[in-house]
């Protein structure tokens, strides 16, 4: 369960950063992204996939735990 730092890029896309792995990728798709529910499966620019526990939309930037799929 790596800690992931999420922040918005200048162009509005989400940036997914894992300090321990030097992974800095854009989020290509997010399973749930509505005002009620946020999270689920994320697909990154390099094709790798992670999973956030669905939750209320968080205030970004934020550090969250994710599961590697």
């Amino acid at each position, binding site marked *: 369960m790596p800690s992931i*730092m999420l*922040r918005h890029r200048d162009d509005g896309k989400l940036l997914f950063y894992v300090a321990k792995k*030097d992974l800095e990728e854009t989020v290509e798709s997010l399973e749930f992204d509505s005002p009620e529910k946020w999270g689920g499966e994320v697909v990154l620019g390099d094709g790798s996939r992670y999973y956030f526990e669905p939750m209320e939309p968080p205030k970004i930037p934020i550090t969250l735990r994710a599961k590697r799929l």
Partner: protein
Amino acid sequence: MSALSKEETEALIQEVLEVYPEKAQKDRAKHLAVNDQSLEKSNKCITSNRKSLPGVMTIRGCAYAGSKGVVWGPIKDMIHISHGPVGCGQYSRAGRRNYYVGTTGVNTFGTMNFTSDFQEKDIVFGGDKKLAKLIDEIEDLFPLNKGISIQSECPIGLIGDDIEAVAKQKNKEHEKPVVPVRCEGFRGVSQSLGHHIANDAIRDWILPNRDNDNSFEGTPYDVAVIGDYNIGGDAWASRTLLEEMGLRVVAQWSGDGTVAEMENTPKVKLNLIHCYRSMNYIARHMEEKYEIPWIEYNFFGPTKIAESLRKIASHFDDKIKAGAEKVIKRYEAEYNAVIAKFRPRLEGKRVMLYVGGLRPRHVIGAYEDLGMEVVGTGYEFAHNDDYDRTIKEMGNATLLYDDVTGYEFEEFVKKVKPDLIGSGIKEKYIFQKMGVPFRQMHSWDYSGPYHGYDGFAIFARDMDMTLNNPCWNNIKAPWKQDAAEDVAVAAGA
């Protein structure tokens, strides 16, 4: 020699790798690459931030170097104890030329070396008592210090001293920040982890100190300069530009910086990151906790400066935007004169770089402004996010080398035949003896500043001074010169 094609560069890498045993060859091959601008991500072509291969001559440093030497060391009004044996602190003392204003030994301590000078008995019985005594002595002798940081050297981690307990107790006693930093040299693969550890220590022990203190009067134009270590006065040359465009620089991290500045940084509106590698961690933390956005900028060479000034201004109102244009306009004649003077002398010259942190990509723009071309670059301790940023700056089919070994670097230079090399002091004399002009780019070869418009003039002069120095014609011993040259010399005399 004209530029190498992609195939030739690949062949060159293969040729250099040839001498290694098979296993080493496989490992090193991952760290050498030919630049391809079409790649979005560097992990497709280069591996970085891995343990150096045993037996090769690496040019890297250690975690202690990253923490004490780079991040903490320049904070001028703190005393940084090199906790452990005497050598680590003494041999790195004042080597980085982080300039500062103040009276050394009274209210600033940048060039001094404080150490607990571990002896055998401290290793056997533990050094915590000695550390406590040392901190009390510092308080007696240097009462104007604003805080103390304890920079661990290798033995501290090995013998398991509890420096955190000492720090907490002394913090209470003296009512000053006493920061334990667990930056033992054996941690991590290079100085890079030391930066991270140092950033985390600042995050935990310094940044929150004024969280509930609103006495600091902010303005909408407050910024912090982060990751500028004031080498030869760099941060000052940057700061004047920012102030001229109407911004207020609240803090300098950490060149010529103070504890108070750092504690006030959470009150700024924008963090400006120069050295991304060593301080992005704290910027990311501040973005999350204090909602301060951060941007990277580059103050090497007029093209990049203008780009960066506009980028910084775009985060503020029209007053600052106009200010940025005014600054660019004001220095236009000055930097054009520099280019007009030096470009004809440097045009078309080829440069190879091998440095750390930000320079392998940041200075490319400055060289290009002088008509020079960077044909190879590499980092000592970069991570992949640095190479992501480098690929776009470098030309196609140029060389990239990560954690290059002494042997590889020499061979590359012999084959690529650059006109100038920019690297560190350990490489300097090897290449000078090979007859290649060399600049020590870690601390600007005892010159500087190189940041900002003022710095660019010095940069251009230094490059010219090195490259066009007549001494390079006298490298060959007289009896080895061929007859044609003899005639020329005789005619000249």
